[in-house]
């Protein structure tokens, strides 16, 4: 388990001059050509969201050139951002994500520390188990989980189904295993001398974690936080199964169930909603791309 470094500069490839330079120049031109093609392929849906979100319903139904906005308007944005229902979805999503990130970090950071540093009976098995849990998809667990929470509601009278906070119990099953796993990697890459020095100085295990491991592994912590946030923001299946009342929905499910009314598709608003729903992860990505990528590659390339 080696250190995962944040690579800002990229590799340094020496440009060679001489007989190979002409080949290289052509290879470069072709590379750019195909990269432009792939970039168009990648960016078409988000750009089309933006284009449609700036159109009025009249312009959309007039079926003019779909790739161009003739009369840009912000009416869709104003409509959604002043709608209490949409704001409710947004806040539900925001609260769920913030709580889930907090819960995830509180569970996975100490656990990763213990698994990486404090070898105890079964710790290796547990670490492998954590990784296996990460491989169990949500689509396998949603039916038994739904039934479980329904039964808990029947037995104890605490109704959790159709409350947004039921998601706080369920999302950690998606975020905690992965975050623990990458934090184990980051923690294991910290030199043993550091915590030995701390222990000799009389620090408790808890102090070793908070004073040394967390500050040193901060890049990993940020990567794990970003991961937990994106997963809980984007999750679609669990809220679809567990919440139905419109005041309990989170953003992705809310947009899909309320803006699509029967056969009437208000595409201007749907695209605006989708864009606003995609905005938080995109903004985080724009500012913290290196951490995002470090977290992404740490999961599988760790080793």
């Amino acid at each position: 388990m080696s250190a995962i470094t944040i690579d800002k500069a990229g590799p340094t490839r020496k440009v060679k001059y001489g007989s190979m330079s002409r080949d290289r120049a052509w290879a470069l031109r072709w590379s750019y050509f195909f990269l432009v093609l792939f970039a168009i392929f990648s960016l078409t849906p988000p750009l089309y969201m933006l284009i449609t979100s700036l159109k009025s319903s009249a312009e959309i139904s007039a079926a003019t050139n779909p790739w161009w906005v003739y009369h840009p308007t912000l009416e869709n944005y104003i409509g959604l951002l002043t709608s209490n229902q949409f704001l409710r979805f947004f806040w539900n999503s925001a609260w769920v994500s913030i709580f889930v990130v907090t819960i995830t970090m509180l569970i996975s950071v100490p656990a990763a520390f213990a698994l990486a540093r404090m070898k105890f009976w079964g710790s290796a098995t547990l670490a492998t188990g954590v990784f296996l849990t990460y491989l169990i998809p949500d689509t396998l667990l949603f039916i038994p989980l739904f039934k479980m929470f329904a039964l808990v509601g029947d037995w104890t009278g605490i109704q959790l189904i159709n409350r947004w906070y039921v998601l706080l119990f369920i999302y950690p099953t998606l975020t905690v295993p992965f975050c623990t796993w990458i934090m184990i990697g980051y923690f294991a890459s910290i030199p043993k001398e550091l915590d030995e020095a701390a222990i000799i100085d009389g620090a408790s295990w808890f102090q070793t974690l908070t004073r040394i491991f967390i500050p040193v592994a901060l890049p990993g912590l940020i990567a794990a936080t970003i991961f937990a946030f994106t997963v809980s923001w984007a999750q679609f299946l669990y809220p679809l199964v567990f919440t139905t009342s419109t005041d309990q929905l989170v953003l992705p499910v809310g947009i899909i169930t309320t803006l699509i009314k029967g056969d009437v598709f208000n595409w201007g608003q749907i695209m605006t909603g989708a864009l606003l729903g995609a905005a938080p992860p995109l903004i985080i990505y724009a500012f913290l791309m290196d951490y995002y990528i470090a977290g992404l590659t740490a999961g599988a390339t760790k080793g």
Partner: protein
Amino acid sequence: MVDVAFQQNRVQATKAVRKRNGLHKALKRKSTVAFLMTLPLILLIAVLVVYPAFYSLHLATLNKSMTKFVGLGNFEFLFKRDTFWLVVKQSCIFAISAVIFKALIGFIVAHFVHNVPANKQRRWRGMLLVPWVIPPAMSTLAWLWLFDPSYSAFNYTLSFFGIGPIPWTGDANWARFSVILVNVWYGAPFFMIMYLAALKSVPEQLYEAAAIDGANWWQRIWYVTLPMMRNIIAITTLFSLIVTFANFDIVRILTAGGPLDHTHIFATWAFRVGIEGSDIPLGASVSLFMVPILAVAAIFILRDISKRGNEA
């Protein structure tokens, strides 16, 4: 899996050993602290992952109203239905072709990005990773709108070339194609970023040696790049196979299984049967069919990881 026997520490936990005389007690204390630190994780996994997984096995043996034990009755029922076999076929087509295309596109694009001068790579990588960042439920809505039967922007563009109109989500085969296309669009950036990381770790000297030996670009890829990247390719592909096989969002939003169940995969059909059709045992039985392929992929991934663990 998570059968960690931790009871042995419970006794010590109660009387936190204060005196640090002797190595033995200190060790005990350390394991107690470690156990307490991992306790929330163990509880979470045991209660909300392992238990539901086995509960799902139990559910699959009940009748629709969940009052009677029917053994393998649900499975017998499934095997007799044509829709089930359609779903099996479609899940395999969907997962395998999507993963192959994702891997291929990711591999090609990673090479192109790697070719570009280092100072420009960041920008391209940033742009190409956008599909992976947008929540799939949101981006699939954009695709749904691009595929709209009457206002499709693709059909509008294709009409200038005299093609179409293409029934993107209306015809069974086109709908399958569309679902796979969206999945490839969403997943290829992940492969790209993984392969790019792997490409950067291949020493430049190997390529120089190959060039001196007169290898052409194809031989360089086949004899240098691919062997060096073998591990990453294997693990990324297996991982993506699991995720793709268990995919829900894209199919659900794009076609909801239609037309006539011709794009249903295990997850969406389990949802249709179990939650919408409120036949929870049958839904649980359907989703259990994802387990074999997940198990096989997991075993391979695990073998790879433990192998690397031994090397470290």
